[in-house]
């Protein structure tokens, strides 16, 4: 019997659209997991605050999605925007 990786043709994943980021500051506890996942987009400042780019480029979408998935308090919301 064939394995799952043999017969099914896969399509190349579509290029991601850029996203708009919003962070719910009332839920964010500043664990910095998003900084670990997407360091070019999120940053924990020396002031103890979270800084981030609200409109990162399409090339960051994968990492930003992972940041949103891994956020301990699920405080990151992404919306698609036109390139």
């Amino acid at each position, binding site marked *: 019997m064939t394995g799952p990786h043999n017969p099914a043709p896969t399509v190349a994943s579509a290029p991601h659209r850029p996203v708009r980021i919003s962070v719910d500051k009332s839920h964010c506890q500043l664990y910095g997991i998003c900084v670990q996942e997407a360091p070019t987009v999120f940053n924990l400042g020396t002031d103890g605050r979270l800084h981030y780019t609200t409109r990162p480029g399409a090339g960051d979408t994968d990492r930003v999605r992972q940041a949103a998935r891994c956020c*301990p308090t699920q405080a990151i919301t992404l919306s698609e925007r036109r390139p």
Partner: protein
Amino acid sequence: MTTEHRIVIAGAGLAGLSAAERLRERGHTGQVVIIGDEPYRPYNRTPLSKGLLTGDVSRRDLPLRTYTDLDAVWRLGTRVLALDLERQQLLLAGGERLGFDGLVIATGIEARHLPGAPVHLPRVRMLRTLADADAIDRALAKADHVAIVGGGFIGCEIAVAARTRGLRPTIIDLSPTLLAASLGPALGAIVGDIHRDAGVDLRLGVGVQGWTETPAGVQLGLDSGETLTADAAVVGIGTHARVEWLRGSGLDLTDGVLCTPTCHVQKDGNPVESVVAAGDIARWPNPRFDTTPRRVEHWINAIEMGQAAAEALLAGPAAARPFTPIPRFWSHQHGVRIQSLGMPALGTEMTILDGTPKSRRFMAGFTRPTPKGSILVGAVALDSPRALLRHRDHIGQVLNVG
């Protein structure tokens, strides 16, 4: 062909969801069937011991989001009874046989029962599911004194929730410190002080010998000879991998499902190319640390391993990359953020790398000796997320102090 090419995901938790999303992201166009025994689509379990019990998180916030259309067939409220590897079939409740071309095993864990604990009583509870959290919520609503058996993360977090609700919690654990297994005795003692300062009563180094039901609650006989009277009790003494349905399949089920470094399950010492496992149930060797297979019960691991297992299933055992994460977890206890990186439990020595323990704002590194030098295997930070960020890339490397 593709609709006939079916990947079944057994388990509708975070690992299963993450696997499903990654299958679609990597272009799998065949069927994806997700089987879960709870009646809900995947939801976030982390608030069940925290915000859901304090009212800071509502049920509306629990469903987990995805960023790709899963186009999945959902079989919720459905139990998987057995796996037939030879025929590539699952046996479901009611006698249904469901064939698969690929299978992701992600049925997770359940709370381990403490022998003698009368969990049939409405006021004695364990925590795993949303239904359990609802039952604990109802028990706490009528309680003042709450006995919590088990000083791990679940027990500690429920104590925090109980204090937030103005109740009087007592944590009982056989270990002399809280969180001993995850953080080690020195940090466990600091977390114990944080709990005491917040008004949590700790009975450490003692076990529960017997339980007596009373009209208003339960009495717990401790092996110190003392008797605790409580209005409600929560037992959180560890977990048990949900492997019963895999018995007889030929897989190694010693503490979870044994996997190769690529998340494939093994039969007779060889990887099974059509079956992977992910999340709390999977025991695999992480070559970043050593060759010993272990389970990792962290939320972020369920995400990362679900994704890795999906990729490995599509790639096959020969081409798949090993799954080598730096495990991460977090907990919030009485306003203090506890975060961990790597595998602190593998360390034989602890060094403070940032801040001071007295200030309760510090980071500790856990090392073990190797011929190359002292390797940093893990780090734990209390209220120091920036220090943790600085050391993330040092996990698995020789530690240069100073």
